[in-house]
């Protein structure tokens, strides 16, 4: 992590949202299948989450990759911790780990 001033904005969003998803498009209109899949899994578990559309800003699109040292989007953060991209979230969802992870982090999930 460097002194890129844009990183402060990203950090603010991650701090403000216990579950924060950087994605392509919006939850209502995802513009990428991988982003859509993560939205579906979060909705299935019924967690509240914030999102940021990286397609709305070329700068953000690049900065989030540098910030996370992760070259692809979507990217999921929970309580400030980088969880991963769609493959990791899917793997955790499919083996039940994701629900437990949210519970352990104190993030309310639907019953």
């Amino acid at each position: 992590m460097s002194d890129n001033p844009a990183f402060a904005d990203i950090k603010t969003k991650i701090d403000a949202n216990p579950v924060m998803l950087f994605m392509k498009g919006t939850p209502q209109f995802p513009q990428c299948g991988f982003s859509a899949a993560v939205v579906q899994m979060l909705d299935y578990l019924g967690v509240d989450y914030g999102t940021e559309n990286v397609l709305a800003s070329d700068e953000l699109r690049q900065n989030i990759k540098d910030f996370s040292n992760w070259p692809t989007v979507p990217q999921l953060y929970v309580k400030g911790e980088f969880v991963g991209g769609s493959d990791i979230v899917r793997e955790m969802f499919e083996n039940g780990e994701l629900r437990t992870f949210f519970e352990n982090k104190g993030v309310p999930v639907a019953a």
Partner: protein
Amino acid sequence: MSVAQTIRQKLIIAFKPSRIEVRDESHLHAGHAGARPEGESHFRILVVSQEFEGLTRVHRHRRVYDALKEEFDGPVHALAMNTLAPGELGDTDETRDAE
């Protein structure tokens, strides 16, 4: 050499995998953002390697991204990956379904 062949070669050098599969799935994403008309943009890989032993998923994926940095700076738009240590093989549908 195709992009898939380059990816395979780099992964073999980086991870000395006991099992590796690289599939070009660009045709499934034709017309999407990031898909190139000429294809070779979306890939799916399975890598089974001792190198992943004891690493978190995030760490494993970062190692793969590092190994394929030039490809990500170039034609590759998306890479779906399954990274396993040898003892984990057979834990997923993906490995059972793989040819």
